[in-house]
């Protein structure tokens, strides 16, 4: 199965700019790649660069910022291949931001599942 590991934390948290935390991401990502679980990963620019788009009454509404105010913001993700939820959680638990933020583990809805 594939899982998207969504990395949430308060953007203002000092650890997000702590070089020693950022340095942990290198070996972590290498480990995921070497285990064969890695599909893709990215860090997102801060939420103040976000734009929200909605269609209402056939009109496109574009607004500044995220859809809702929340305590923690989505800051990045890993897409991984894992044999089950325990394996995905095992990878998520090693993401450096998990120590102060939180990781949401979401199974990917694969196309072949629509068939069954």
């Amino acid at each position, binding site marked *: *199965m594939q*899982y998207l590991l969504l990395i949430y934390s308060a953007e203002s948290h000092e650890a997000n700019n702590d070089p020693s935390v950022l340095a942990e991401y290198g070996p972590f990502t290498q480990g995921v790649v070497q285990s064969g679980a890695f599909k893709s990963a990215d860090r997102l620019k801060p939420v103040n660069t976000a734009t929200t788009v909605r269609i209402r009454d056939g009109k496109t509404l574009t607004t500044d910022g995220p859809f809702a105010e929340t305590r923690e913001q989505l800051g990045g993700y890993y897409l991984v291949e*894992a*044999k*089950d*939820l*325990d394996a*995905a*959680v095992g990878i998520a638990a090693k993401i450096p931001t998990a120590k102060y933020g939180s990781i949401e*583990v979401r*199974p990917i809805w694969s196309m*072949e599942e629509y*068939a*069954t």
Partner: protein
Amino acid sequence: MASCIDDAFRRHGAEALATLIRLTGDFDLAEEGLQEAFAAAAVAWQTGPPDNPRAWLISVGRRRALDQLRRKIAFRSRQEQLAVEAKIERQAAPVETDEAEAAFGDDDLLRLIFTCCHPALALEAQVALTLRTVCSLPTASVARAFLVSEETMAQRLVRAKAKIRAAGIPYRTPPRELLDARVLGVLAAIYLVFTEAYAGDPRQSLAAEAIGLARRLDALLPGRGDVQGLLALMLLHEARRPARYDAAGDLVLLEDQDRGLWKAAMIAEGLALVEPALKARAPPSPYAVQAAIAALHAQAATPQATDWRQIVGLYAVLMRLSPSPVIELNHAAALAMVDGPAAALPRVEALAARGGLDGYDVLPAVRADLLRRLGRRKEAGAAYQDALRLARYDPERRFFRRRLAELEE
């Protein structure tokens, strides 16, 4: 004949379901298959059950489950049908054995318990799923136990099973590095079943289910201090049930209970588990320490003979092992029996001031009792009023009202 099927259901129902879930990879299909297998047994076993009823149920149940699956996809396109057939073939193949499975044997019931109590499921869903599948309780009974409608409970079960499927919760005994944490999760679910049953008297049948689950877990994972500790704790508490309520259904305090009514066999079973539970690992599991406290109460022939000093010491150990305001409250209440209510009251007041136990009726009840024993009747009355407001069950409410009436005499 009907009784031989009932007997097979009681003895093999959960195990057969557990194996069918592994073989079909689907809770619902397994349940439907097993149901049909029991219906078939009603006809086929008229001349007596087969030599191995469990194997018979599994083999018929699996065939029926796969028939069900084929019927469900009959309206789909040929290509989709082929995909599902391929999936059935894959599921029919023997499952891969990993390290943990080799270490713990091929035990489907254990797999089922760990899957039902997976931490990715909400605790209330874990408990519902465990009672429904491992204990084979009908949905209506599970619903009654948790004071929700049958429809609500059925939805809760459907959602839980859907999450197991969609999120890829594995059907297995956790590997060694996850085992301790997962066992604790299972024990928390079992203990929730027990405490709900213990606090609310109309639901006492659930206490037996909780004890039965812990016994099974102890047999499947022998020698674990946490499992033995919880089992002992529940046995020692449950043994007192006949003395906890009087003929009118009113609560009887430990010190006023007729100890002759306690269930001796249950106490003996519990006591025998306490020492191995404490010695199984260092430091001991908090459940084992709580069981040791319950054992000291169970061993006292009279309330006066209770070894309160040792109980205070054990609560102090518990405060180190698993600090919580509830443990602190119990420690203070025990301390009052050794050093007197005046020594314990400041601790209880400090706890109340700190918050964290808001909404817990036992806190004002303990405070009220200490004030009552100190002769501070007016403050005691106000504290009993607080407890009365927070009480969840009728026997507790009647007890607090009785105390209030006594204070006004």
